[in-house]
């Protein structure tokens, strides 16, 4: 029972959704008030998702409570994190997400942190490029040369060295060609592999072969 009922429910949902997406008249089935039947089920699923409300913060609290209880290194930070998360969350729930203080904290603290963390990549990419692009073997040399061409083409001085008006369209002509032909071809081939993985996985779940996500 533990296994079969959810599985059968899943099959029913699959068939329903498939029918709604694929069979024309069902796709166009509209209720009296203008709501599509398919939309109705979609919304019901959305409402179901709302039921898991708060699970994120509760799990988060549990993890950090563990740190405090075992007095692990930096447990003070865990205590600070729990207090701040709940205070900010509850304040937001009561006052709304457009509350001036709530959105100011987001704008002044979270957003700069988000952008700054992302921008660390400007430095990391420089050190990664420096370390990786060596003429160790043919593969890394190929990668280096292409990266080199694209980098030069992306900045104004590439244009000054080899103009796009001249032979082969200059650096930017070569970059455009590299991106449009070899890059697109490779990315298409890799993504077909990834896509096949996705399809196979879908069927593993649909056929009930894969059950690890149900934790039985």
């Amino acid at each position, binding site marked *: 029972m533990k296994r079969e009922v959810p599985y059968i429910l899943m099959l029913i*949902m*699959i*068939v329903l*959704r498939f029918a709604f*997406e694929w069979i024309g008249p069902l796709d166009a089935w509209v209720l009296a008030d203008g709501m599509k039947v398919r939309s*109705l089920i979609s919304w019901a699923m959305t*409402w*179901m998702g*709302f*039921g898991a*409300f708060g*699970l994120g913060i509760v799990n988060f609290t549990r993890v950090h409570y563990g740190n405090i209880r075992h007095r692990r290194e*930096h447990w003070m*930070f865990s205590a600070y*994190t729990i*207090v*701040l*998360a709940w*205070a*900010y*969350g509850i304040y*937001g*729930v009561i006052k709304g*997400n457009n509350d001036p203080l*709530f959105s100011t904290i*987001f*704008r002044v*603290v*979270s957003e700069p*942190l*988000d*952008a700054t963390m992302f*921008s*660390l990549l400007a*430095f990391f*990419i420089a050190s990664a*490029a420096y370390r990786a692009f060596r003429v160790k073997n043919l*593969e890394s040399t*190929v*990668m280096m040369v*292409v*990266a080199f*061409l*694209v*980098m030069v083409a*992306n*900045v104004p001085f590439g244009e000054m060295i080899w103009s796009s008006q001249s032979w082969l369209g200059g650096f930017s002509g070569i970059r455009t060609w*590299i991106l449009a032909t*070899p*890059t697109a*071809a*490779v990315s298409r*081939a890799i*993504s*077909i*592999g990834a896509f096949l993985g*996705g399809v196979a996985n*879908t069927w593993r779940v*649909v056929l009930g072969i894969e059950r690890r996500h149900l934790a*039985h």
Partner: protein
Amino acid sequence: MGWTRLEIWIAAFFTLAVYSYLIKENVLYRFAEHTFLALAIGRGLCLSVHLDIIPYYNTHIVEDGRWWFLLFLPLGALYYTRSFGGGKYGWLASYPICLSMGWGLGYTIARGARSTMVQLADTMGDLHVFDNLLFLLIWACVMMYFFLTVGKNSKTVGTCGKIGRYFMMIMFGAGFGNTIQGRISLFLGRLQFLLRDWIQPMIGH
């Protein structure tokens, strides 16, 4: 946007706290890290109420009178059994998981392959055009690199696969080179903030 000086100072403090990681992991970074984590989680809680639950409560339940949507809430709450109850009742969570996964998978089966079909059709270009021919050859070589069962011992497949690997390196090089621009832009964005909004008023230009 009307930032006050205090706000700018706070933002600048957190910005520099993150950059301090480049020198060494330190207490300022740790403070910023935990602040960010807490705010992200807290904000998630607030947004799920104010962007999801309340607006849809108003439109679906109050306006349309579809009160039966509420019956799905306890079903979703079963997700909690996964994390609590010592794993004893974890199987109950398979109900919401199966329902929502089923609804998603039905969509995938009906529509998921469409984008790929467009791409496959496009790959079959007229080979009189040199770019199309090259495109197909590169595509085929990379595909052969990923042949996992057939042609393990075939020299042709092996060689083509190797060539395919070089073409992949071309793509990775191009991807890398192209990304640098984006990553520098990110830092420039922060730099503009630090220089224009934080330092410039201090030295009074």
